């Protein structure tokens, strides 16, 4: 495990070089938050609570959703697919290195980078500019664990999609579809509570809400009891394990294509 830590450090350093990019990403986030603010304000014109959420809670939910979205956006699927298509992947096969762990740690590096350059500024902005505050509760302490599990799930899905590069010329279509499904059904763009009852029930069992909805709930409603949080974490953990090992199995299967086709 120790040998993978420098990899995370490496991508962190590379990320530092693109400061100009961060400024624009943050600017993009400000615009998005502004648009979301106006959108939800116009929706809350009708009543103070909708689907059990106040305006403050909804806006905090959506704002955090966008911050976590950028945090978890690692482009692992794009990189992996690129490396497969260009034949760079063969280099990993010759090294005593586990590709999945390697990529996981590389992405952990960019996660830390994004956390400091984008998510924290966004959170601070949310607090000051829009005067949204986070209540105190046990959820705040569970949040880091929940976020880490969310990262594992998100990474595993990306890695899975990237591996499709062994079978297809481009992954644009799959990546796009994946991104849309995640952003719509995960709570990244709109609180899960806004979906019709029947849909909510299904969504809560899918892995997508475990990426956004769960960690966001730890911050928007942190003062709930462990009886609420524990099952949520359990669902997250199960999905994290299932997807991580499913991706591993899929890799073992997919890499045969390379060995047979000779790159």
């Amino acid at each position, binding site marked *: 495990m120790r040998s993978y830590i420098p990899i995370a450090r490496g991508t962190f350093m590379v990320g530092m070089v*693109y400061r*100009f*990019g*961060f*400024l*624009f*990403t943050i*600017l*993009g986030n400000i*615009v*998005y938050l*502004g*648009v979301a603010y*106006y*959108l939800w*304000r*116009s*929706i809350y*014109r*009708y009543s103070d609570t*909708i*689907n059990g959420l106040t305006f403050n809670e909804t806006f905090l939910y959506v704002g955090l959703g966008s911050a976590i979205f950028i945090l978890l956006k690692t482009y692992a699927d794009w990189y992996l697919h690129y490396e497969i298509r260009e034949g760079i992947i063969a280099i990993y096969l010759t090294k005593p290195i586990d590709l999945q762990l390697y990529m996981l740690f590389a992405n952990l590096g960019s996660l830390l980078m994004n956390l400091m350059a984008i998510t924290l500024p966004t959170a601070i902005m949310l607090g000051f500019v829009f005067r949204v505050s986070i209540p105190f509760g046990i959820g705040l302490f569970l949040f880091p664990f929940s976020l880490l599990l969310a990262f594992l799930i998100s990474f595993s899905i990306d890695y899975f999609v990237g591996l499709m590069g062994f079978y*297809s*010329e*481009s992954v*644009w*279509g*799959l*990546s*796009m*579809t994946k*991104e*849309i*499904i995640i*952003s*719509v059904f995960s709570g990244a*763009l*709109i609180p899960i509570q*806004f*979906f*019709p009852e029947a849909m909510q029930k299904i969504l809560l069992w899918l892995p997508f809400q475990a990426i956004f909805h769960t960690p966001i709930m730890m911050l928007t409603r942190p003062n709930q009891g462990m009886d609420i949080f524990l099952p949520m974490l359990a669902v997250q953990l199960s999905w994290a394990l299932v997807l991580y090992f499913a991706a591993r199995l899929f890799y073992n299967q997919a890499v045969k294509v390379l060995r047979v086709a000779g790159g």
Partner: protein
Amino acid sequence: MRSLAEYLRLYVIIETQYIKARMQYRADFIISSIGMFFSSLATLGIFWVILNSVPTLAGWTLMEMVFIYAFYMIAISPMQILFDHAWQIRFHIQQGTFLKYYFRPLNMMFYYMSEMFDLKGLTQLIVGIALLIYASAQLSLDWTLSRLALLLLTLFSAALVQISIVVAASCAAFWVIDSYPVLGLAWKLREFSPYPMSIFDGAFRIAFTYVIPIGFVAFYPSQLFLRPDEVASLVYFSPVIGIGLFALTYWIWNQGVNSYTGTGS
């Protein structure tokens, strides 16, 4: 100088061959089209979810939103289909392969953009047209010949607005090394163009109307058909605003291609 007809003929010749070559990757085309289909419906999905909980969005009903959204999808298709190569400018600059576009006796923007024709964008166009027909039937809109002509004119103009925003943003690559975030921002803004502009006020309203006029990609021109009696006088400019913006973008492009060569050795 070449006439417009000559350029059109050349474009057809190049794209026919390009599409033929791309058809080798049929599976990729199908998967990409599916991706396009989902991605183009994402924001509409959000509207649908929201309008399940509240009756209207700033006074606009779900079906009206579907109409505006359909208008938006059609308006952004030409950018997607014909100007997709704009995304690659930064790669060409980084790898020094942009130079070749200077050497042909052709308009450079034409030559550059003709190198790519994005088939999956057709999905967007078709879904947009289908939704537009559906929504206008549901809203029982009255389509006379002159209104249809106005629709085509406003769509043309809206498409030019969208093309201008993306191409102008992609021109950032001529001056800065890491231009992706600029383009990414322009791309993200695109998603806000079907939002009712009436929900915004202050800086956002001004920005979306006058600075980066995404309001003219869908919301303002749609008003001409949905609520012709309520439109503000500014909305009447939407049929022509695209031409002005495109001229500005073309000027930026020319500045870019001229300044780029200046930095080489």
